[in-house]
């Protein structure tokens, strides 16, 4: 088999592909965020990276790459510790079983993420994370609140969650550089009662629901999948003085499509590319 011609042709094709992919598009941004889109990692480096979502290494690498900030999923343990974790049940991606809220932090810290292969990354508390971020207040943080209670007393659970989140925001002086997003209106109302300066986002099932809720509750904005919102709807949100965060961005082309919609914040699984595009 004549291999050299194949190698040369492959080399030329790949070179053309790499060069063509590097061509940049100039975006004209028009939004409420000073006509700039903030680039956030999805739970750090996103679900296409070699780190588990929300682990310390993933969150830190995202920030160290130059992102404006990162989104992180937040859950409450049985003993009222806030941890960064995405899934409903620990068994989906770790070596232990159960809801975060059904276990104490002492039990949860024994968990090891199953992926990637040959690694043993751990779950982290918000306290440990923020205590170890250098230049903490130069970044922004979006708390995606995951309300997965194992308790029958929902009011007690929500109040505990709000109190612990407030403690973290106060302890690390994050009031001006943090956003809180939730699907639960009651949770958002409790946060508003706690501190009216919190920047709160509704995480709705549809744009229309989100717009109505955000206006009614006087929220800071709407967090929504890029699949569920158009450029025109983002303009409508902006006309109502509502910031818009989009997520569900899994590729470099989705980064570009997202930017063209003029949101204020993008949470991307391809954060390195997004940083490059919005810089």
């Amino acid at each position, binding site marked *: *088999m004549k*291999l*050299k011609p194949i*190698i040369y042709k492959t*080399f030329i094709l*790949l070179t053309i592909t*790499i060069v063509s992919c590097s061509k940049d598009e100039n975006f004209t941004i028009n939004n409420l965020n000073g006509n700039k889109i903030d680039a956030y990692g999805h739970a750090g480096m996103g679900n296409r990276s*070699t*780190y588990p979502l929300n682990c*310390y*290494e*993933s969150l*830190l*690498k995202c920030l*160290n*790459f130059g992102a404006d900030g990162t989104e992180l999923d937040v859950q409450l343990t049985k003993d009222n510790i806030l941890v960064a974790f995405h899934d409903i049940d620990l068994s989906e991606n770790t*070596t232990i079983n159960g809801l975060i809220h059904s276990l104490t932090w002492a039990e949860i810290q024994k968990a090891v993420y199953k992926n*990637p*292969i*040959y*690694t*043993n*990354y*751990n779950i982290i508390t918000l306290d*440990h994370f923020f205590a*170890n971020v250098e230049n903490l207040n130069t970044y922004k943080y979006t708390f995606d609140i995951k309300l997965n209670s194992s308790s029958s007393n929902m009011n007690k659970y929500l109040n505990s969650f709000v109190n612990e989140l407030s403690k973290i925001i106060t302890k690390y002086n994050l009031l001006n550089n943090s956003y809180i997003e939730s699907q639960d209106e009651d949770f958002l109302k409790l946060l508003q009662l706690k501190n009216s300066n919190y920047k709160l986002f509704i995480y709705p099932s549809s744009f229309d629901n989100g717009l109505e809720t955000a206006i009614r509750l006087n929220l800071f904005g709407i967090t929504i999948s890029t699949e569920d919102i158009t450029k025109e709807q983002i303009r409508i949100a902006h006309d109502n003085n509502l910031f818009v965060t989009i997520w569900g961005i899994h590729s470099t082309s989705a980064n570009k499509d997202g930017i063209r919609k003029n949101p204020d914040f993008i949470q991307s699984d391809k954060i390195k590319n997004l940083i490059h595009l919005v810089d």
Partner: protein
Amino acid sequence: MIYNIYILILFLFSYSVSFAQTDSTVTTANNSVSLDILGIGGYGSLNYERTIFNFSSIRVGVRAGISTLNFTDYTTKFNPDIIIPISINALYGNKHNLELGAGQVISNIVQASKKNYKPERVFNVHTNFTIGYRYQKKKGGFMFRLNYTPIIEFYSDYRHWGGVSVGYAF
């Protein structure tokens, strides 16, 4: 980064081809290089194999490779994870071979220290097994493997795994 890996693969592949072509006296290929997709190296690895025993339709080789998960650590400094799959593989056949193997994987992964959250290297050893099909002529040339490669991570957690390889024997 991907571009660098591509150049490395191209270099290794070209080197193996030219080496095989210059030695026309070799009738049995005792060496091979291959690129694994998944397999015992994790998500992919570059491998070299040397046949150490060759009798009739049975060949036994020692195989070693190199792989990584990240070239930079979470501080973005060059500090690659290192994964070294090592195995002894037996082949039965002439062109279409049954392949059986077992070995160890050495992993040296950069993680945050639980004490001070600074990057630290964590060393571990894992066991791997291989059973599957290999297309490889005795005289060498193109090689293809399709294997089930279960791994006992950290000597405790059984993980179903598999892989595909393409390479060149010389």
